[in-house]
């Protein structure tokens, strides 16, 4: 390994090193503030080292990981989200009993898994990254050990994740049996060299999609989602909804582009059915929820469906527009979802999780800024202008219209109509008059700062997305 490869891998190694440092730190002295600050410094260092890695790209480091613009951009996104989640976690856990020092450690290992995932070009890295991510998540979900809901969520996630890994491995095995390759590019070469479809490879990809479908919580693989979202502590839910899903989706996209799997047209039909089901099913089920966390869980199912539409459009649009639309949508989704769960996390106290919709009654008049931020997040999820979510939706519409997916577009419209109903319901509840006396809100300065920053980003990219679009285009052309 030469120096250039080392520089290119520095961000990943920084995270791994920070994780070890936090672990050793805990062994010496248990201190939640210290653990969080070490983790935050490590994340910032890693983000900073992305800059120097940028100069080396594209470069193959070792056998498994390709450091390129695509990877670095998404790593930056994942790490920044990790930093934001860490901020919410700090305020959320600082007043709680129990030993919370392992929390930043687990966040770091999960981010390590995610970073490997977005850079992997080989089945081994793919699987390793996914497992590091998942195993960290089991513990994170069940972190409040003495409560039943988090434990229930953790067990559910553990079992279903295990099953999905089995699917994944079987799929990889089938593909390997036929192609004799574990490299994405090798598989791509095999697919390109044959005119007809190979049924083993097709079956393999379908199994992989089923495995990843679990992680992305697409219908019909979504059953764990509401329980895990509800059970996990609010900042951790934000982490699952963004980092875990985002990294998996990014990998799926890279796999499809570099193995040329878009040539397998039947796959796109399967995807279309999954996307349609996720959009309609997610939105319909969300209508029935009175629990904000479960509601956001179903809404995230629908959002993954929207994203999948952009992904399906990749079959007939240029890969630049494909990467651009997926990336912008993911970016907006990250900001919005972290922000929304951030509000839930700020409102939660060690005694009660702010998950029932009645908890939000009159929030507009008691804590106007917080309620305004939440409203903006919800409007962004609904895709209303002035927010980044609107531009994201515009991208999906543009991609889908370009590849003439009229049926799916229609599903998106119906889904948006339904979605609007339950987002507006929360806003209505927030704007009703509350007679209850306001509880003195806890002062969460770090969470508030993060939330303000996210809200500003949301509006900035909603009104003037040009800067972000230019960066994303740079990434898309370099890929």
């Amino acid at each position, binding site marked *: 390994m030469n120096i250039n490869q080392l520089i290119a891998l520095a961000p990943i190694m920084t995270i791994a090193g920070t994780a070890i440092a936090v672990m050793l730190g805990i062994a010496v002295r248990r201190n939640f503030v210290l653990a969080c600050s070490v983790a935050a410094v490590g994340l910032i260092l890693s983000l900073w080292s992305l800059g120097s890695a940028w100069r080396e790209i594209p470069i193959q480091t070792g056998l498994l990981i390709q450091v390129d613009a695509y990877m670095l951009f998404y790593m930056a996104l994942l790490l920044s989200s990790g930093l934001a989640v860490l901020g919410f976690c700090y305020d959320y856990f600082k007043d709680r009993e129990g030993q919370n020092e392992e929390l930043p450690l687990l966040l770091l290992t999960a981010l390590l898994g995610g970073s490997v995932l977005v850079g992997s070009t080989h089945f081994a890295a793919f699987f390793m990254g996914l497992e590091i991510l998942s195993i960290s998540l089991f513990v994170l979900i069940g972190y409040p050990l003495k409560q039943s809901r988090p434990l229930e969520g953790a067990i559910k996630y553990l079992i279903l994740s295990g099953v999905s890994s089995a699917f994944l491995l079987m799929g990889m095995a089938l593909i390997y049996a036929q192609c004799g390759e574990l490299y994405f590019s090798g598989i791509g070469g095999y697919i390109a060299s044959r005119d007809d479809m190979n049924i083993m490879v097709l079956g393999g990809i379908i199994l992989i999609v089923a495995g990843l479908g679990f992680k992305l919580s697409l219908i019909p693989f979504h059953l764990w989602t509401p329980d895990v979202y509800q059970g996990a502590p609010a900042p951790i839910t934000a982490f699952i909804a963004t980092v875990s899903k985002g990294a998996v989706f990014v990998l799926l996209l890279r796999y499809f582009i570099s193995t040329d799997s878009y040539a397998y047209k039947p796959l796109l039909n399967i995807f279309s059915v999954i996307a349609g089901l996720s959009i309609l099913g997610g939105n319909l089920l969300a209508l029935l929820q009175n629990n904000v966390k479960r509601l956001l869980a179903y809404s995230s199912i629908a959002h993954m469906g929207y994203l999948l539409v952009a992904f399906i459009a990749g079959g007939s649009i240029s890969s630049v527009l494909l990467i651009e639309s997926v990336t912008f949508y993911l970016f907006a989704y990250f900001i919005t979802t972290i922000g929304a769960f951030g509000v839930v996390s700020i409102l939660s106290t060690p005694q009660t999780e702010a998950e029932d919709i009645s908890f939000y009654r009159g929030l507009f*008049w008691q804590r106007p800024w917080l309620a305004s931020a939440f409203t903006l997040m919800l409007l962004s999820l609904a895709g209303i202008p002035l927010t980044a979510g609107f531009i994201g939706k515009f991208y999906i519409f543009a991609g889908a219209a370009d590849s003439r997916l009229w049926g799916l577009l229609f599903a998106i*419209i119906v889904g948006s109509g339904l979605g*609007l109903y339950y987002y507006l319901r929360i806003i209505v509840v927030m704007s009703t008059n509350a007679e209850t006396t306001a509880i003195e809100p806890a002062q969460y300065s770090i969470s508030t700062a993060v939330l303000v920053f996210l809200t500003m980003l949301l509006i900035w990219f909603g009104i003037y997305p040009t800067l972000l679009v230019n960066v994303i285009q740079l990434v898309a052309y370099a890929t």
Partner: protein
Amino acid sequence: MILLVLICVLLLGGFAAWFSERRNPAAPRWVAIVTLTVEVLLLILPYSIASETDGLSSAWFAEFSGPWIPRFGIGLHLAMDGLSLLLIMLTVLLGFMAISSSWTEIKNRQGFFFFNLLMCLAGTIGVFLAVDLFLFFFFWELMIVPMYFLISIWGHENRTYAAIKFFIFTQVSSLLMLIAIIALMLIRYNKSGTYSFDYFELLNTALGPDAELWLMLGFFIAFTVKLPVVPFHTWLPDAHTQAPTGGSVILAGVMLKTGAYGLLRFVMPLFPEAAQQFAPVAMAMGAIGVLYAAVMAFAQSDLKRLIAYTSVSHMGFILLGIFSWNPLSLQGSVVTMLAHGISAAALFMIAGALQERLHTREMGNMGGLWPALPILSALTLFFAIASLGLPGLGNFVGEFLVLQGAFNVNTALTVAATLVLILAPVYALIMIQKTFYGPLYQHAPLSDFSRREWLSLGLLALTTVWLGLSPQTVLNVSAPALKQEMQSSVVKEG
């Protein structure tokens, strides 16, 4: 540049109104008044240019253009012609009326109320000015959100239902329009290789007949839901009835006109052939809407609901006029837009004033109010007969021109629509009869119009008379714009 300022003043005014509440709970309404006054001053300049349009080479007399999202060729492109000027003047006038009618009605959270009101106006003016389709869509969506808040926070008993219904109807239909806009942009991209959402560049895009029809439908549905036209009208009676008076004034007076404006500005010039093919269907929808809504209006017992249905009826006339697509009927549609905006706003203000005094909108609980409220009753009678189209008042001019223009295009539908001249007096007079005649229902002393209410409605009454007696002033301003719309749809056919 002045066009951008027109929008920004309202945006800034909105925030100023919101924050001024901290200083003084009564300050927001004054901030709103000042903001609109500045807006009026800003409009003087374009108007002075517009009134001498004969010498101008193009109907567009003010323009602003800047980059926004170059990736897709989206520009911050605003332009004003006679049509947009007239509608903006209507918007500002009714903005004053909305503030006036909310003066005492809105008691709590005035800051946020006037913020939303001004945002609504800003969005609407943006819609009337945008000539970049993406920007147009942006404003189109933007005016919905504050109106949603106006209804859902300050509305009446069933406000949540009405507000959500309003939002979902308009949002879903506008997503159809968004798809049509994107598809139109992509078709042009495949031909020329550059992205653009600019109205003027998209104007002469050659489309296949099928594509043209589908795209036209996308726009048509979005605009007719907003207009609204039967069968897409069901959100309107709910929204109007539940909205606070100020919200109803803006909704009926201005927001419905954005639908008509969209048909006139975008549907006809962008898709002339498909629109011509589709014209009989659209005109039939218009005629059915005119009659159906008039009958429905007659059947209502809720005063605001009755007025809401009369709006639907008048909007049918506008649709009929636009799809007849000749100078007479278009002028008629424009005059109807203005006249209806004024008369409907006035009627909603009166309904609001009655509700403030009687705490009911049910006409069954009213009756015999004339001796108790003479000025209010007289003004109601005036606007009721204005709304039924009495010659000498604005609405008559509009309806007459529409019917005259449409007669040559489709005689049968025009004759059918003319029947409303019988139905309109029926619903207008039943309203007067139930509300003001008969035995007095309530015995508590009622206060007649205050000076503020009297002045506002008097101003509207004067405008209606002026519009009826000398419509030529208005026609002169809108004529070049309409001529240009007609030309641009002809050029493409040739």
